[in-house]
């Protein structure tokens, strides 16, 4: 049981790393960044390519991948989201443009790397088991939990406690008013994309290291889960993403423990439907008010 708890927490940690970035961008721009999964995939590929094909030490490769993914995120903002925003384009247009950009990024990865599945060579830290107090489980699971606590927890803390976080919340409330108050809105939005993309890259690298699953199409599985998570937790809310990730991972784990692993997607989706009937804005989402 202790091992299943650790594995469930590890799954929640991974989901929250991916979903927090997605919901962060949604909070600021009110659009789903459909290219987020492609950035996640590129984060994994940059690290893998640097480490395996160019012999870069793994830690340095991870840093390069995080920087690379951040640059991709900022480019998406500069080339797609910002021009559309400046023209007051409908949100649907930005969503479709992001979808196209995601498709393009996947296609470029297919050209560059092929369509096979790649994996980091097995490393010592992905093997073996660890006990911390009553908890026992694979070392890699503890590693993912630790990274997520630092990164997602750090993001949440920064949003609540720093000036930049206050500025971000002001933009979420009303970008025009925030600009009048002297906040550099465009710069803050670019920074948001950089942070969200860096988090996606960290999730991608973790999947590559632990689950041996680097491929141009690796984003599709987690993307669907992330949508469920941010709807469940409340769209635009980072703590909501954490809570949603914990809820989904808990349901999946309980399903496995109960011998119902084949039904876990059904259980998760049914829960989301029921919750949305009771609370359409999600667990921590704010209700939509009429202007």
């Amino acid at each position, binding site marked *: 049981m202790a091992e299943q708890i650790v594995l469930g927490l590890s799954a929640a940690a991974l989901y929250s790393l991916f979903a927090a970035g997605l919901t962060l961008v949604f909070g600021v721009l009110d659009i789903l960044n459909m290219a987020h999964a492609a950035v996640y995939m590129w984060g994994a590929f940059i690290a893998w390519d640097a480490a395996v094909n160019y012999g870069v030490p793994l830690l340095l490769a991870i840093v390069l991948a995080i920087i690379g993914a951040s640059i991709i995120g900022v480019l998406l903002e500069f080339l797609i989201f910002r021009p559309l925003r400046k023209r007051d384009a409908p949100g649907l247009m930005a969503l479709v443009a992001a*979808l196209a*950009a995601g498709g393009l990024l996947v*296609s470029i990865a297919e050209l560059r790397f092929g369509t096979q599945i790649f994996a980091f060579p*097995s490393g010592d830290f992905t093997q073996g088991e660890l006990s911390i107090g009553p908890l026992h489980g694979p070392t890699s699971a503890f590693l993912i939990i630790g990274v997520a606590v630092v990164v997602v927890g750090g993001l949440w803390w920064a949003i609540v406690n720093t000036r930049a976080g206050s500025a971000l919340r002001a933009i979420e409330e009303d970008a025009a008013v925030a600009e009048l108050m002297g906040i550099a809105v465009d710069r803050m939005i670019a920074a948001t994309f950089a942070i969200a993309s860096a988090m996606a890259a960290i999730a991608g690298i973790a999947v590559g290291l632990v689950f041996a699953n680097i491929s141009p199409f690796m984003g599709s599985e987690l993307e669907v889960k992330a949508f469920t998570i941010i709807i469940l937790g409340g769209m635009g809310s980072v703590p909501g993403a954490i809570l949603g990730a914990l809820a989904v991972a808990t349901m999946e784990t309980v399903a*496995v423990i109960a011998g119902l*692993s084949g039904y876990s997607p059904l259980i998760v989706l049914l829960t989301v439907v029921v919750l949305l009937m009771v609370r359409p804005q999600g667990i921590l989402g704010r209700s939509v008010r009429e202007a």
Partner: protein
Amino acid sequence: VSGRTDLAVGYVSVAVAKSTDEGPGEWGTEEGGVSDSANSSRQGAVDGRGRADVVWRAGKRAALGGLAVALAVLVVACGDDGGDESEPAAAGGAQDVTLGAVLPKTGDMALLGSSMVQALEMARDDMKDQGYIPDNLNLSWVFGDDRADRAESIRLYEQFMGQDDVLGILGPLTSSNMESVGPIAEKEGVVSYGVQASAPNIPDIGKYVFTSAFTSEDLDPQLIAAAKEAWDPQGVAIIVCDDDPVVQSEYDAFVGALKENQIPISADEKCKRGDLDFRRQLTRIRGTDFDTLLIVALTADVAKIARQAHEIGLLEGKHLMSALGGNNPEAVKVAPEAMEGIINMGGWSPVDTSNPRSVKFIERFTERFGNPPTESAAKAYDGAFMMVEALKRTKLTGDLDKDRAAYRDAFATVQGYEGVTGVISSDGVDGRGVLLPEGGGVVLTVKDGKIVPFEQAQ
């Protein structure tokens, strides 16, 4: 298809490929093998012939991505071309015939599909080099990337049947997609040939639907028998990603064979195709009394599950079996330590030395593409030749409906075709549409990172 304008559009990778080297395995590196309209135009301008006998149709998502770079495509196309994209009339007297292929060159089944596309490319070139196509036939191929997506398979089938007037189509890869397109092909009277569609119900869809895959009932009892002889399993833990008809039929066959051999099933965990984390199910298995882990999943998932099982120490002192994956060199690459010693059934051995055609195919394929062929690639290579072999036996009249019916009859009567996978014969005009090589499957294992027959490794 003389005079038909090459309308394939939007395969986004091509626009990018202009600025990169086209690696081995890409369509469009040689005469007549072009991958899209932009490439077609480019080829026409370069070699002055402008003839395209292969068209690559795009997947929906790739086409969407293509919209984003449509301008770039346009620039590339215009910059290189300036000529007419339409094809010249066929050589006088030759009968125009079009065959199709629908395979996942990209997407989550590309692990198998991409090697099949490579094999088709090789088959097409070999047919030319060997003069395999009679002079009285002006053969064109249309190819489509369905990304293993059912809707895309259907769309491509409808396009090939309705616009390209194909006589027959090779693919799609998966049984689930064959179940979707088979009834459509049957209704239109077009041969649908799923070379690797191994679900037992495929030939029952209709008389125009064919397969060259051994079914799970053919192969899996052999695997259990081999395990029983080698280590006599006392408890088998199963993990099955059962949301796929092939996997479900494999699972049913395995459970039947285990029961028949009175081997206890100690655990029966479910997963989903494409899942990331299987460790929760594997941890649950750890608490059971088993000496053999049986992974029943599609190839890519087998590699992931095996690796995760290895990394949590589940495989220590245990045996590993799988229905699929253990015969795929790319899957072995993903999890070399975990896959060492796995036993797996194959419909063809990638180290077959008994068939000189197979040996030559493996050598040439590996040399050309830099990777060894998979069983799917061998099946696709033979499949392409079978399509043309049947065509050679068809008396064409120029009436499409009659020709399609005649082609189906010819397909159903192919006997003794000597292919890479063995001597292939149809099971008869009125029988089910199954074209299998003589003999049966082979039990394979991984030894020192290489796939070898289990008999040799023991």
